[in-house]
């Protein structure tokens, strides 16, 4: 019996997953603040609470995400690129390409049949097309980002959102609002823009089935739908998609737990 934890400290949210003998027994998710070490602690405690387990039972903790070095109580670190590959492979073993859209960046990862990273590409220019972009634009429309998922359904004339800058895209959205555009069409335009950017990123590693979509933005059904339409492919999305990085981290700990920490 091995209990391991993966803690993913992202740019916007902290996620934790507890794995026992390869099965998920606890999880937690909370926004990150400015005290990342505490956020990491809290994430683990919350997941332990959910699983009804004790801290001392955990055999390995792996940190990932931008704040992976803030998981000071952990034994291992692995970049979220490696973790998303592992996590996606765990949930969908046939995965060859992972698209991860998180709060601050977008990654396309090509994975081997063993869940190892073969190649990856990340957005190089600013935060355009990431979760932050959607958060800010949703705000400009007067919604929370979790509310706009199904909003694009009835869109008939999606607007063009061309601004490369997250911050200026916000004013582009405001300008459409001022011109009385239907929010449906605006949101549809936003999704098209996010998807188009991620397609261009995926081109760099090569699109091939199976594709697994991970990261917080994969919880947005509108983006998922738009992506499926554009690719004309089925796209794996797990209900745990935002946790994929943390799952991968936990798996990494599991692999390593046999060998003594360096």
């Amino acid at each position: 019996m091995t209990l391991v934890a993966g803690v993913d400290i992202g740019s916007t949210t902290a996620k934790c997953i507890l794995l026992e003998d390869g099965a998920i027994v606890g999880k937690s998710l909370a926004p990150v603040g400015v005290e990342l070490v505490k956020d990491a602690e809290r994430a683990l405690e919350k997941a332990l609470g959910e699983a009804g387990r004790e801290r001392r039972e955990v055999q390995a903790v792996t940190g990932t995400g931008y704040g992976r070095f803030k998981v000071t109580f952990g034994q291992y670190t692995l970049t979220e690129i490696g973790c998303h590959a592992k996590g996606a492979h765990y949930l969908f073993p046939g995965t060859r390409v992972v698209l991860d859209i998180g709060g601050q960046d977008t990654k396309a990862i090509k994975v081997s049949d063993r869940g190892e990273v073969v190649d990856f590409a990340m957005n190089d220019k600013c935060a355009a097309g990431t979760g932050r972009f959607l958060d800010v634009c949703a705000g400009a429309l007067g919604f929370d980002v979790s509310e706009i998922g199904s909003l694009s359904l009835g869109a008939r004339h999606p607007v063009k959102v061309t601004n490369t800058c997250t911050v200026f895209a916000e004013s582009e959205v405001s300008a459409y609002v001022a011109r009385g555009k239907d929010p449906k069409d605006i949101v549809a335009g936003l999704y098209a823009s996010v998807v188009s950017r991620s397609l261009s990123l995926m081109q760099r590693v090569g699109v091939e089935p199976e594709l697994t979509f991970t990261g917080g933005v994969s919880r947005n059904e509108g983006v998922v739908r738009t992506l499926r339409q554009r690719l004309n492919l089925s796209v794996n999305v797990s209900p745990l998609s935002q946790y994929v990085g943390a799952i991968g981290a936990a798996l990494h700990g599991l692999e390593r737990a046999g060998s003594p920490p360096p």
Partner: protein
Amino acid sequence: MESTSAKAPSFLSTAREQQRSMVEEYYAGLAQAGGAKRPVAYMLVGGNLTEIVRSFGYEVVFPEIVALNCAIKHVSLPNILHAESQGYGLDVCGYVKNDLGLQDLGGETPFGRIPPPDLLVCSFSGCYVYVKWWEALAEKYGCPLFMLDVPYMRDPEPQAEDRTYLIAQLKEFITLLERTTGRSFDLGELRRVLARSRRAEEGWVEYLDSGRGRPSPIEAYFEAVFYMFPINVLRGTEVAAEFYATVNAEVKERVRTGQYPVPEEKVRLVVEGVPPYPSYRTFWDFFRKWGAVSVAATYPKVGGLFDRGFLHDPGRPLESIADYSLGAYVNQSWPLRRKLIADYVKDFQADAVLIHGIKSCRSFTAGQGDLRDWLIHDLHVPTLYLESDHEDPRYFAPAQIKNRMDAFFESLGPRREPLVPPPGAP
């Protein structure tokens, strides 16, 4: 796994000292130069005409080198901001902005004052920005500008018409120099300068070639950059000709004593692209943590692909200068650049390629994405592409860069079986 023993890099101590004092002397000398007795020529690294200009007694300033020195010393940003306030946009080459900003602010640097030019020599060899940059200097200083138009290299060897064109221009250049200095051209002197250049070049090539060793006794990117100064700036002088003997002796010493720049060599890299000078140390640290050493790099060849067979030849003075100008690294077409990099991977037994793109340099960078694609998909060489700037500290996002680098080295981990050498270049 990240190795925890990231010690400070071990430098070639004597050579490093010598190099440092050469740089100091050079700048100290410059601060005194200018005027009729020791006129100053501004020149560009790619395809430069150092030897000819030196044979006429000019002091030579390379604004690109001044710019990178400013960036390493963390003083480029004020110059860049000044240039931006003049209207140079965010996307203009950082070297240009550093130089034009610095010129406008009076030329003071931590290593001495840079004198204004008496002559501008534009070797249009592989970078169009050169033309624009020198136009701006000419407009500011009103001094003579000579435009050496260097045909772009699309064939592996220079064509007859390229040479004819260049030699004709070189002769016109010499006439201009005779007119402006009032001295007549001294072929004997040019030959002597060229012979000194050649000696430096031979030593430099020996140094670069030692990267073939396993483990590599040199760091062919981060460390080599220090030793580029003499080959680029002081070529044709006696000190430069002597210098590489010291360097190479110390490299041999390293091999003898087993003191390698990266103690535990885990990954051998070929590096393409200009370094992020403002964050040079940070960047290097990221590598050393993973036991990565560069064994060959394209950037130290911007001043000439000496390691690929070309050397200045005092017996064919103008012909060899013409060939030199044609051979600047950025003057090579993409097919030639691709082949060169593939050759380095094979010849130096590299495991992977790192490409560092420069946001404000299109000459080097436009097409590096395609290069990455070719290396990964056609040659199956793991390749990492990173992007920041060579001058502008605002473009270096350490967390993001580290993230990518870590992910890349992590992914190399499980596949560290000996790499199949790339199946020949196209």
